[in-house]
């Protein structure tokens, strides 16, 4: 799929830094992911359809949801007043998302890893969000601010070629 004649396209979105606006941001990110993956929404007329079956879309949306949650909860403490600036760069085979906030910095190094041996007794009830984001994406970086900056990057795997290019019809 050609992105603006081969050039990367930039999408800017600013939303209030509360969970009330999360779904708006998630929908924009899901659509941006589809531009890279070439996937088609199951039912574009159904605004309540959370359709992220494509592996690329699934990874991007899953990771973004966790980082948005993190900003709203940890940076802005679930309070109104802050903004989240989201910059999405859509390239031929890659999606980059920058998420900027002016809240409290997050201690990324302080996130405990998941238990190595998982069974009924060690099932975690928290601390999974960063693990999901890091595992789903090719790159997750965080620069404490102000402003604090999360940078997320996902490349389209070689075997998953976007619609309109060779290898997938």
């Amino acid at each position: 799929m050609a992105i603006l004649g081969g050039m990367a396209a930039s999408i800017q979105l600013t939303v209030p830094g509360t969970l009330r606006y999360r779904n708006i941001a998630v929908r924009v990110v899901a659509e941006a992911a589809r531009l890279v993956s070439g996937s088609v929404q199951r039912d574009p007329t159904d605004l309540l359809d959370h359709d992220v079956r494509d592996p690329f879309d699934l990874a991007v949306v899953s990771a973004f949801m966790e980082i948005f949650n993190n900003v709203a909860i940890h940076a802005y403490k679930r309070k109104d007043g802050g903004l989240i600036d989201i910059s999405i760069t859509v390239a031929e085979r890659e999606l980059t998302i920058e998420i900027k906030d002016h809240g409290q910095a997050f201690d990324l190094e302080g996130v405990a890893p998941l238990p190595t041996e998982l069974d009924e007794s060690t099932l975690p009830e928290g601390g999974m969000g960063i693990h999901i984001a890091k595992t789903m994406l090719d790159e997750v970086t965080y620069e404490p601010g102000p402003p604090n900056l999360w940078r997320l990057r996902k490349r389209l795997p070689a075997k998953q070629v976007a619609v309109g290019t060779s290898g997938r019809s």
Partner: protein
Amino acid sequence: MATPYDIENIGTESNLKVRGSLDINTAPALAEEIDRIIAAKPTKVVCDLSGLDLIDSSGVAALVKLYKGVRSTGGAIQIIGARDQPLAIFKLLRMDKVFNL
């Protein structure tokens, strides 16, 4: 925001169907229902995720709470029907084997 679940209680058994998106905005309502389910000490709970399209870590936490709570009171729990993004998340977190998905 619509509550993304239906609950059916038959005797000491509960059937819970979760649908749509189970996330940081919708999980708190389900967590309250889970508290009620656990308090009733059911002998068996079936949690059907076939209608669930999307989940985040808050949603996973709610289901872990259900699983642990039912098991801790001696009940049996089956989590069935996970697909697409929710199944991918459970696999990533290695919970698919614990939940026998």
